[in-house]
């Protein structure tokens, strides 16, 4: 029977949750790296026992960990993230030039076919790659060096490259998202980049339709239909049918279109999930009710999924990297909260139950479906 391994990054360590294909009984392992912030951990599609973890601390900086046995043991890898050349400046919150300063790795994206190749999205926003299993890291300088880079400004959480999507059917095509610059796409394996933000409208910037400057929170695609992208923006849920070249709003009947994560069903490319949050200054669900919203029509028409989720006095948030799906049938959906719960649905969102309820604040959730 298949197994599921859920990789959870929290403010105070990493946890590995495992279950069989029924997804009812769970073993909990952790905390790994207790006391450290684990922004993200993710497994290699080419070797599921190869995991990478981003471990960081305000005191001691960035550490990269690697496991070769599915998270049972870990090895400290290279943490030298040095910007290519003379880094220059971007814009600070007050609009003045500010030097690029590496702070942390937000997201690790292992390559689909080579377990030793992994991408890292970092703050201040840049894209790094390792081809030796995380021992050394090289910046892909065309990303940060885009002509708009010196005008990028941080979002409230810092100027982070938080999303990396490797297009499974177009080798060399990479999407990234930066807060608060927007979506960029490379078609040459990361050498050159183009902004992909046409159709976005953000009222919080001087030109609401600017080519760059949007606070994109998360993008996702279905591997069977990679030209269709879904986006949770600061406000607005968006969809692109042309690989990011243009976007249209599909917020439809959502109670609020502010939120952080967005994800796609493993087997239904038009079934997507978001977690609406009250507003940009009230990072908790509307009315104290934790509701995942599902669209089976690729957006616009949404239904609230509430069974098993708290429907009163709930004021947690779900961060951008804290939702994932498994590849079983029916598709499992998982998300973690800033209140330390990790919820799972084994029926594509129809019903939910907590796997764990009292972890530190959850920053990221990834799922591996194992044979």
């Amino acid at each position: 029977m298949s197994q599921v391994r859920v990789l959870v990054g929290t403010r105070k360590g990493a946890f590995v949750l495992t279950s069989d294909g029924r997804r009812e009984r769970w073993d909990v392992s952790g905390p790994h790296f207790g006391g450290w912030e684990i922004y993200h951990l993710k497994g290699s599609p080419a070797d599921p026992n190869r995991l990478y973890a981003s471990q960081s601390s305000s005191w001691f900086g960035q550490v990269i960990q690697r496991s070769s046995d599915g998270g049972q043991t870990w090895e400290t890898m290279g943490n030298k993230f040095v910007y290519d050349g003379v880094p220059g400046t971007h814009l600070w919150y007050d609009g003045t030039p500010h030097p690029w300063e590496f702070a942390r790795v937000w997201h690790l994206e292992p390559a689909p076919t080579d377990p030793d190749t992994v991408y890292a999205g970092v703050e201040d926003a840049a894209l790094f790659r390792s081809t030796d299993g995380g021992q050394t890291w090289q910046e892909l300088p065309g990303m940060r060096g885009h002509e708009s880079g010196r005008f990028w400004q941080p979002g409230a959480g810092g100027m982070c490259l938080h999303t990396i999507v490797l297009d499974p059917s177009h080798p060399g095509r990479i999407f990234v998202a930066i807060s608060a610059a927007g979506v960029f796409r490379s078609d040459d394996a990361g050498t050159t980049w183009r902004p992909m933000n046409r159709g976005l409208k953000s009222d919080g910037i001087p030109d609401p339709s600017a080519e760059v400057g949007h606070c994109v929170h998360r993008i996702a695609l279905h591997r069977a239909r990679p030209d269709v992208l879904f986006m949770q923006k600061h406000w607005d849920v968006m969809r692109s049918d042309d690989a990011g070249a243009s976007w249209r709003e599909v917020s439809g009947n959502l109670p609020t279109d502010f939120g952080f994560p967005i994800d796609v069903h493993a087997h239904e490319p038009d079934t997507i999930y978001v977690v609406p949050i009250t507003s940009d200054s009230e990072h908790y669900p509307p009315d104290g009710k934790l509701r995942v919203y599902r669209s089976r029509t690729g957006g616009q028409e949404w239904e609230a999924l509430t069974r098993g989720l708290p429907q009163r006095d709930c004021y947690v948030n779900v961060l951008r990297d804290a939702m994932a799906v498994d590849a079983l049938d029916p598709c499992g959906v998982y998300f973690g909260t800033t209140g330390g719960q990790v919820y799972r649905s084994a029926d594509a969102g129809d019903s939910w139950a907590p796997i764990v309820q009292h972890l530190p604040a959850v920053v990221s959730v990834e799922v591996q479906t194992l044979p």
Partner: protein
Amino acid sequence: MIRVVLPAHLRTLARVAGEVKVDVDGPATLRSVLDALEADYPMLRGTIRDHVTQQRRAFVRFFACEQDLSHEPVDTPLPDAVVAGAEPFMVVGAMAGG
């Protein structure tokens, strides 16, 4: 032989318990002790001082013999008691928070 006390999180990272001891070539200074420490425990590189600038990380402090050496020039000789092994050189995670 210089005795070095690491903060708990760096002991975990370096997979050591208690004090560590490092051999220093030439005079024992902040720089030479940290060089020796990072040579023996490469996983500590970048966690105490920046990889490139070698600047001390903001929330890390260096204490010895009840003195704060954090702001001393990196080539300042360490106190005799540290060189003699009577006192440890301490890498400290600064108190921060409420």
